[in-house]
């Protein structure tokens, strides 16, 4: 006789209205989930499927009828009867300003083409704050052989902190130090990575949306002008080290592995790896002199 399979508690459907369109989504969903169901393209920077929403970037804000302020779509749960506008004047204004404020203070050149698309869509012109506007520009931190930290590209999305903490690694090597415009990602007492609690899992690199955290191999190749994604192939394989079965994506350029990632939606890794899977690939390409 077949075993009873527990399917989870039944979930109620909640009806809301987005831009005049009615939709029913399961209780506990976020406004962002509902927007995506309706294929309403909603900009996000600090949101990622495998991390807890922190709603700090505020680029996903939407207008909720009856609310004094705009609400973040990424973390606000749906409630029955909500009436939401995703493209009102107020929403477009705040999204534009968030993108302008970020791009005027941070080097966003290595963010995804999607981000540049949103900047065009909302008419963001970061130059309008003037050439003297303060930035977070600073030298790249290169203090180990595996990855570099370029905080002049950091938008403080907190993703690396979450991946290093309870959302994945539970190592807590990094956190946010300082306050206001001086807030920044730091190790304990700002020590270099080799002296910190870092275990070099590289999960912070995996979630970084701006290129602030980068494989040293990629950083060096970019500096030498040899990094060329059009010449790279991605080979999927399973990590050979232990029995967990993490799926690896080997990014290969000119027959050399230059970067290792794992798919966010993979059931084993949820995008996260350990130091062996992430960085232990040198033996594959050890060549006799």
């Amino acid at each position, binding site marked *: 006789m077949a075993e009873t399979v527990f399917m989870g508690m039944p979930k109620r459907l909640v009806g809301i209205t987005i831009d005049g369109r009615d939709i029913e989504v399961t209780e506990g969903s976020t406004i962002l989930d509902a927007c995506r169901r309706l294929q309403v393209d909603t900009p996000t920077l600090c949101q990622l499927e495998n991390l807890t929403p922190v*709603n*700090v*970037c*505020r*680029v996903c*804000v939407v207008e909720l009828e009856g609310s004094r*302020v*705009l609400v973040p779509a990424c973390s606000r749960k749906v409630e029955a009867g909500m009436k939401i506008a995703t493209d009102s004047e*107020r929403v477009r*204004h*705040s999204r534009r*300003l*968030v993108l302008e*404020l*970020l791009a*005027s*203070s941070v080097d966003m050149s290595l963010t995804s083409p999607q981000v540049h698309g949103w900047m065009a869509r909302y008419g963001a012109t970061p130059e*309008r*704050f*003037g050439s*003297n*506007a*303060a930035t977070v520009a600073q030298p790249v931190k290169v203090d180990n052989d595996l990855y570099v930290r370029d905080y002049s590209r950091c*938008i*403080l999305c907190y993703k690396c902190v979450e991946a290093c903490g309870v959302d994945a690694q539970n190592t807590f090597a990094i956190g*946010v130090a*300082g*306050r*206001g*415009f*001086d*807030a920044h990602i730091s190790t304990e007492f700002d020590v270099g990575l080799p002296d910190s609690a870092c275990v070099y899992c590289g999960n912070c690199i995996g979630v970084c949306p701006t290129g602030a955290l980068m494989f040293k191999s990629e950083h060096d190749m970019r500096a030498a002008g040899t990094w060329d994604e059009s010449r790279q192939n991605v080979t999927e394989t399973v990590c050979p080290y232990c029995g967990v079965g993490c799926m690896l994506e080997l990014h290969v350029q000119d027959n050399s592995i230059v970067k290792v990632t794992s798919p966010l939606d993979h059931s084993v890794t949820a995008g996260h790896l350990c130091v062996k899977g992430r960085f232990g690939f040198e033996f594959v390409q050890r060549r006799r002199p």
Partner: protein
Amino acid sequence: MGTTLRELLNGHAGGVRPGRTLQTVLLGGAAGAFVTPAQLDVPLSFEGTRAIGATLGSGAVIVFDDTADMKGILLRIARFFRDESCGQCVPCRVGTKRQEEILERMLAAPDGHSQADVMLLSDIAQAMRDASICGLGQTAANAIGSGLTQLKVLNG
């Protein structure tokens, strides 16, 4: 509740010092609004202050006589919010910094401020009000905006 600001200042607090005149009152603290001498009959109630675009806010009543340097006060308020921003959300973290930069530029301009800077300040103010996480960012532009319209601090 309901006592007028004039009664509070002149009756209960003794008024401005002899030989000085009242310049303005900052009602509601650093996130409040400036009230001009012409508006002193406002009743100190939620409805009364709201009717003139001010607020009771924290309940603070800060009185400035004609010797006060209001440019310095406005810059001080902008710096206060830049300092107090915790840095978590973008509108407040970068907005309070930009607000300070632009205000400095506007107040220092010898031949009058540029209209583009007025627009920038009001754009930043709206985004901070609408999209900041907490009340600090949501109100960080209140006194600056109110000061620039109520007080004669700009050149030209």
